[in-house]
């Protein structure tokens, strides 16, 4: 799905209208590119560069500077687990280790069914609700492995019911 697809037209125009300089729209447009391609692909970078009237190298350096843009393909669900000090004081390290074991992945890895990519991240401003994570940038808080297992199996069941489960 290209950024030139009509479905993105209004959103892109809305972002460009916010700023006196097209270049300022590079960050919101990178999010749209990530949504369109599932990751910040070279084609996405090229398209953002054209719209913002920037050099693709500059766009790529912006994409690389921030942790929320992924320059590699990931699973459908991005699980960003906070292991920073306040969460770690409340069991985040054990939680993160158990979650990886359950999914059979290393830090930054994607589960064999291609659904879940897990990585540890820095403070997410939810220190009073540790252990916690963000899934596709939405908060999931006050977690334990029982809750996580149920949630993971629900996602798997959902996709199987939709007929696009294993290996999608």
């Amino acid at each position, binding site marked *: 799905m290209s950024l030139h697809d009509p479905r993105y037209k209004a959103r892109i125009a809305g972002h460009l209208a916010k700023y006196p300089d097209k270049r300022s729209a590079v960050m919101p447009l990178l999010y749209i590119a990530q949504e369109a391609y599932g990751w910040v692909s070279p084609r996405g970078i090229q398209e953002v560069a054209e719209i913002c009237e920037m050099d693709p190298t500059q766009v790529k350096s912006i994409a690389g500077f921030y942790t929320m843009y992924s320059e590699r393909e990931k699973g459908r669900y991005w699980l960003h687990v906070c292991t920073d000090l306040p969460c*770690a004081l409340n069991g985040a390290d054990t939680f993160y280790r158990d979650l990886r074991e359950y999914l059979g992945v290393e830090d930054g890895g994607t589960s064999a069914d291609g659904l879940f990519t897990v990585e540890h991240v820095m403070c997410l401003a939810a220190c*009073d609700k540790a252990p916690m994570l963000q899934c596709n940038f939405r908060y999931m808080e006050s977690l334990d492995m029982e809750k996580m297992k149920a949630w993971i199996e629900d996602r798997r069941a959902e996709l199987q019911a939709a007929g696009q489960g294993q290996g999608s």
Partner: protein
Amino acid sequence: MRLLLRGRDIPDLHRLSVYQANGGYEGLKKALTMKPAEVIDEVKASGLRGRGGAGFPAGVKWSFIPQDEPIKYVAVNADESETGTFKDREIMEGNPHQMLEGALICAWAIQATAVYIYLRGEFWDIGDLLDGCIADAAAAGFAGKDILGSGWSCPVYTHLGAGAYICGEESAMLSSLEGVLGQPRVRPPFPAQKGGGLYREATVVNNVETLTNVPWILTEGADAFRAIGTEQSAGTKVFCVSGHVPRPGNYELPLGTPFRELLVDHAGCDPDNIKAILPSGGSGPIVPGTDEVLDTPLSYEAMQGLGTILGSASIIVMDNSVDMTWVASRVTKFFKHESCGKCTPCREGTYWLDKVLDRILEGEGRPEDVQLIDNVAKNMAGTTLCALGDFAANPIIHTISNFPDDFNAHVQPKPEEEQPAARPARGGRRRRASA
């Protein structure tokens, strides 16, 4: 007394009608009947200080803006990323219009041409919420074109960051908004000066919590605000309490409330089981959980007297089981990850501190390693363009000076009868190392 976390007391306060039914936008209406300079004087007189960490008087900052410039901006710092900080999130989720109103009053006071709200990228849902609030406020005449018939126009926009702590630093935040790498700039010129702000125009950068205080100051008056808190620290503060705490969360209390009241009475901590406190997230100097510390008022001036800072008041509590070497390592990993790479002392210093701390925690440390990391940290402090270099040095310098035994225990071989096994990373229950 809640001036800010009113969302807890009033359901649906994020709705414009509910906010207005509870006095919402009366501060803006009053401000528009005043001259901009009078608004600045009122905020100056209130003694409101910046809640993002530096504690700079807000009204004084506004007064630096040159009035005759045709283009001026307000940039709201909603990048809340300091370890242990989660106050701006609750303020914006529960009471978003009050923050918007405060930003608009600031905009009137400096005659700004636009307001940008820079949210950390992970506040995706808050961005959507604020976009809705902005649209509602504009439809009611409080934002956008010809605000309340005054002839003054000021649109408000949200902008999402994308996961970089450094963008909470004001000059890096402005660079990020401009679409260049979010790295700090050389100052002067400062953001409030022509040449130093957003798109090189004069810009006020204020934290969410700072601006959320402003409508109350306008409606109730500077004197009423000064009546809360201490002489040098007026008003309330939202304290974020996390770590080894029975009742973690945000607590809005008058500035000057003692640590003991916050941590023991409100958050439920056992005063005999507090080994250490980080009063300002990862960035401020750590203090031991002694009676002297617990009896210290949480004010800008008293915290300075304690050798630390109030900062953003993100208070992380650690009980007696915690190994301070592990704490130093964990906080260092944060700063290593978040160093933007521009200044050599910070980029290289955090890298080497992390490496040596890993070595120490793995039991491979040498006795001289403690002195080594202390030296590295002291050589980082004061040598970088922004405060991140100092912040990264603090967890080393102050954990070593307050808890030297925790470090030495890792690097000095002990007879087997005293220390039967290599200690795990977090250590077992230990007595307070210094008290």
